[in-house]
């Protein structure tokens, strides 16, 4: 069977048995949610409602409601889009790349991280969709469909179109991967419902589980499917933020026109994605009492990934500056000089503090194994990553070649409202997921109970 080093720390604590896993995880689906859940869910719905009003106004009146001007034609919309897509990188990274590397600690966190990915990508998609103005025509502008303009096809040379394909493929494949993982766990809840005599619940979860029976032959195919999906998702997850970075890198705008963008964006995406996974899981493990499944060890390993990716991002910032100086292009150099010392200096230095300095605190074992410190730092990282995108996008274009057209960007309530809308959408979806779906992959955790728990034989 499996040889597991005794030096490795146990992944599942509390002496859990296979049966305990079914019980501990299914319980949250079966019981009524507690008061804390209702408060959190209600608050998300309020954000969602307010944001929905702003979004509806935007669709009714047009994107003139945003604070964009002639010089700054892209600001919060694309900043938020890239921010959310970046967050949406952790889930598939955890479930695909860590599966290929046989990292068993992924098993406790992959389900929630994948759910987060899917919701984050939906949130990201709302920004380019809203920016289209006439959303209902978006299909014709974004997809190669026959149309009444004779068929005037989409421009396959444009990175914005590559983005359409990359994001929609990433969303679809992540959704399928996540759902395939859920199927055996839905069957667990179905059979528990049958035993408890809940006929309706059993029927619903049976439909969700596609009539799963757990036959050895099906498991064999299932494992093969999971492995190939992981193999397909690994280049996919790297391609998505690469292509997002092409939106900027293929242009000739000083500050965007850099070849370092693809790896730098991918590292930043993993960095922010893991931070968001930590933010969500620290709350989830507390509310659902999952401390035995998502242990300090899991949190520590995620913090180590944050140090690595945070350091890559830090080196990328410094490299960009070096190349701007070394390249001797005055416009390029000015874009970077202006970033650090111009009117947006505060955004630049917020980014540097949050993304480069703060994750270095995780070098101390005391800090990376402390839940409160991790929670605070995970939020700081995502604030920093928001500023990173804002700095790249707005500071590069707000002072263009003609000083007479220099300008500043001031967000309106509608810019903020749409950002709030995505928060409402994200947390509403996540709380619904946490209530109705098993938040931890039971089948995978059960398979490591013997080799990596404190269970005595």
């Amino acid at each position, binding site marked *: 069977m499996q040889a597991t080093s005794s030096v490795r720390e146990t992944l599942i604590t509390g002496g859990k048995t296979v049966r305990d896993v079914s019980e501990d995880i299914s319980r949250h689906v079966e019981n009524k949610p507690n008061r804390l859940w209702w408060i959190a869910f209600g608050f998300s719905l309020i954000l969602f409602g307010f944001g929905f009003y702003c979004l509806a106004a935007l669709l009714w009146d047009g994107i003139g409601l945003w604070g964009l001007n002639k010089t700054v034609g892209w600001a919060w919309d694309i900043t938020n889009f890239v921010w959310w897509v970046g967050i949406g990188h952790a889930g598939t990274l955890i479930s695909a790349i860590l599966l290929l590397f046989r990292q068993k600690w992924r098993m406790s966190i992959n389900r929630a991280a994948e759910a987060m990915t899917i919701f984050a990508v939906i949130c990201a998609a709302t920004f380019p969709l809203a920016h289209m103005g006439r959303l209902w025509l978006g299909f014709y502008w974004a997809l190669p469909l026959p149309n009444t303009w004779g068929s005037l096809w989409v421009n*396959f040379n444009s990175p914005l179109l*590559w983005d359409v394909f*990359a994001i929609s493929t990433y969303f679809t494949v992540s959704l399928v991967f996540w759902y395939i993982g859920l199927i055996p766990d839905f069957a667990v809840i179905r059979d528990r419902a049958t035993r408890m005599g809940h006929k309706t619940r059993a029927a619903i979860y049976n439909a969700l589980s*596609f009539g799963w029976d*757990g036959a*050895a*032959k099906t498991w064999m195919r299932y494992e093969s499917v999971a492995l190939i999906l992981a193999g397909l998702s690994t280049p996919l997850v790297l391609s998505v933020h690469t292509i997002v970075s092409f939106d900027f890198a293929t242009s000739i705008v000083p500050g965007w026109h850099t070849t370092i963008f693809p790896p730098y964006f991918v590292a930043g995406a993993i960095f922010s994605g893991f931070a968001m996974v930590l933010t969500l899981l620290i709350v989830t493990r507390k509310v659902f009492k999952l401390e035995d499944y998502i242990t300090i060890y899991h949190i520590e390993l995620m913090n180590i990934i944050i140090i690595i990716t945070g350091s890559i991002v830090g080196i990328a910032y410094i490299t960009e500056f070096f190349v701007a100086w070394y390249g001797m292009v005055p416009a390029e150099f000015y874009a970077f000089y202006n970033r650090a010392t111009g009117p947006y200096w505060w955004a630049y230095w917020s980014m540097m503090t949050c993304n480069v300095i703060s994750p270095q605190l995780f070098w101390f074992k005391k800090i990376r194994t402390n839940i409160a410190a991790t929670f605070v730092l995970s939020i700081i990282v995502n604030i920093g990553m928001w500023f990173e995108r804002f700095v790249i996008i707005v500071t590069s274009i707000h002072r263009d070649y003609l000083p007479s057209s220099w300008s500043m960007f001031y967000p309106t309530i509608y810019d903020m409202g749409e950002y709030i809308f995505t928060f409402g959408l994200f947390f509403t979806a996540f709380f619904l997921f946490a209530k109705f779906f098993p938040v931890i992959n039971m089948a995978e955790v059960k398979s490591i109970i013997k080799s990596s728990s404190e269970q005595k034989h």
Partner: protein
Amino acid sequence: MSSTSEKFLVGIFDDEDILLHGVEGVRGKGVKIHEVYSPFPVHGLDEALGYKRTRLPIAAFLFGLTGTILAVTMQFWMLGFDWPMIIGGKNFVSLPPFIPVIFELTVLLSALGMVATFLIVSDMKPYKTPRSYDIRSTDDKHVMAIDLAANKLSKDEIGQILKANGASEVNEKNF
């Protein structure tokens, strides 16, 4: 599968290692196993049961190839032949800018095609009610189902073989 009465003998195993040895032992005695149902994937069980490797990777490759061909022909035909446009003074048709879409469609079709194939060959669909040999097979027990009609040995003999090979319970189940 539609005969009115199918008689099964069901052995319950508490542990995946006992199950693996059990499968080998039971098959060694010449008993044909109908199927084993587990709450989680047990590594080596497919070999112990003598299953051939799945051909799903081939399906994934073929669907991926379809995606590649589709993306290449679509882009070349649309921008090269159907409506050529001058965009930034570039060639009507050149391979490098087409690569992202080629890659994405390859991955998309490969993933969707393989998963659809998996669902079809495993007969999984939302309106299917699976046969449950023992309801604990999704919780913590491994369930070995033996079709009595497919075996020459008597029910009692098979029951004894199951017990001797680590089954914690042996039950009868008729459909």
